């Protein structure tokens, strides 16, 4: 038997390898995004339907009070724009989680997890990649909204970026945490019912909190403690070149907790180990 061995460079993995890996994961996510035009279109259509149809019917809801960060009276569509941006990121985060489940079923997740790089790093890369995709969706939405006269100050388009990165990470890590608990693709409907809808509706996305408080004090507290409210407010303020420090703290804190939770859930010694592999074959 001829034994010509392939030489194997056995250096420790360095910073360069980590960067290569991150770039590779971002690049692949971007490529997939380009190939999934329907996903892009539906990610845009959802908020635009809200904007064009729902907001048109509720135009008179606001315009009687000035609330920060706004410095003048605003139309309802201007008010809900940050909520819709957050909705784009919420759906994207949950859809990334769906794709994790899908990946796990189809095995793509396995190719990711057999990388020699630390698992926490791979998951953070995956989160970043999902966030970048959500950024593309959000900016496309902002562009269309601009034609609809929802025009925050130009500087706001830049200052909202760090807020979007943070909120994208938070919602992505939440999705990742949830995905570790979902076994099958079909359970996404459950995620819709028990995560997306309650989070979205019990928040400041559609109505300012002072309005909610007038209606129901209990719902007000529910909204106040809903991290999604703080995602919306963080984006709302950042879009107008302002910082809502409370929301920033809440979102940053939730991002840390969810990310650590997701890393633990995907740790081979914990989360997945207790379950049979998908497909039922052992």
């Amino acid at each position: 038997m001829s034994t010509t061995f392939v030489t194997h460079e056995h250096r420790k993995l360095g910073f360069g390898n980590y960067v290569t890996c991150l770039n590779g994961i971002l690049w692949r996510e971007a490529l997939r995004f380009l190939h999934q035009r329907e996903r892009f279109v539906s990610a845009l259509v959802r908020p635009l339907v809200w904007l064009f149809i729902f907001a048109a019917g509720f135009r008179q809801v606001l315009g009687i009070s000035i609330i920060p960060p706004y410095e003048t009276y605003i139309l309802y569509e201007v008010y809900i724009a940050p909520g819709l941006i957050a909705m784009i990121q919420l759906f994207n985060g949950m859809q990334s989680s769906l794709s994790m489940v899908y990946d796990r079923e189809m095995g793509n997740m396995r190719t990711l997890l057999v990388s020699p790089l630390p698992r926490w790093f791979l998951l953070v890369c995956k989160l970043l990649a999902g966030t970048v995709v959500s950024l593309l969706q959000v900016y496309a939405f902002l562009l269309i909204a601009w034609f609809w006269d929802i025009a925050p100050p130009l500087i706001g388009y830049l200052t909202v970026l760090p807020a979007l990165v943070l909120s994208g990470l938070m919602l992505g890590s939440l999705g990742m945490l949830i995905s570790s608990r979902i076994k099958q693709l079909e359970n996404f409907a459950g995620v819709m019912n028990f995560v997306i809808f309650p989070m979205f509706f019990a928040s400041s996305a559609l109505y300012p909190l002072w309005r909610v408080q007038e209606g129901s004090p209990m719902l007000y507290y529910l909204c106040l403690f809903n991290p999604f409210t703080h995602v919306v407010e963080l984006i709302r303020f950042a879009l107008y070149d302002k910082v809502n420090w409370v929301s920033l703290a809440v979102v940053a804190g939730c991002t840390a907790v969810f990310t650590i939770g997701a890393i633990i859930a995907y740790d081979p010694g914990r989360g997945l180990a207790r379950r049979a592999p998908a497909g039922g074959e052992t």
Partner: protein
Amino acid sequence: MQAAMMMNRSKMLCRVWLCGAAIWLATAAPASAFLAYVSNEKSNTVSVIDTDSWTVTATIKVGQRPRGIELTRDGKSVLVAVGDDDTIQIIDVASQKVVDSLPSGPDPELFTQDATGKILYVANENDNTVTVIDLEKRVRMGDVQVGVEPEGMAISPDGKILINTSETTNMAHFIDTATREIVANVLVDARPRFAEFKRDGSELWVSSEIGGTVSVIDPAKRVVTDKIEFNIPGLRREAIQPVGIGMTRDAKTAFIALGPANRIAIVDAATHKVIKYLLVGQRVWHMAFTPDEKYLLVTNGVSNDVSVIDVTAQKVIKTIQVGELPWGVAMARP
């Protein structure tokens, strides 16, 4: 190649992120520095707004029911008609105090000065007259009998014709400034509130509060040549009540306050077409440009504030709380 592009893109993304974060956390403000004088009809004060910081820097106590307000041509004083005191008070810009008053007729509401700033024409709402006052000597020169409830006042750029609108007679009266005689009456829609000439004198615009229109009048032929109508989705027609009119010096753009519609209509002054509507506070009434025409300030009577419009961007950038029932606004250099 793709790899390199990807690298660059991620680097760029990183830079943009940092840049955005830096700007987000360190905010700056613009500068222009004029003073806006806002008459508060109910609180009997004039609020002074600094257009640099967009804050109220002083509140001047004036007579009862201040409404019409204007800067004198020399820029040294602000005149404010205090209707229930039947006089026009003079506020000194330097000291920001009421220093004197002018003899008007009963219940003065709006007034206008001639080009030289020497003569003041005052519409006295309760008296059906226009009072002519010598501004230098501060004496009454005479009266002109006009229609019922005179309000809007405008003077033609050549100074020869004075326009007065009367709310109940629904007319724009053309008054010869030399003879102080009415030379023509043009019928407009119900309750004309305000009159404004184009800078070149080619058109006279008169707003009709109840009629919901702005009539465009040819000052030479003295006939209505066009009518601007307003239509805001979701609003009843009765809610649209045009009052104040502001026109840029280049006569390209006009801003029309639509009262309880809480909107300012931006109109192409050449084609008379509405370009867009801006949401402002409740019952928007009168307005004034900053001298550089960068900003337009409008008074919102019911919501007790003043909205600031960026003229070139055609956007409302801020709304500032003032006294009760803000009515008119005049702009001065400090």
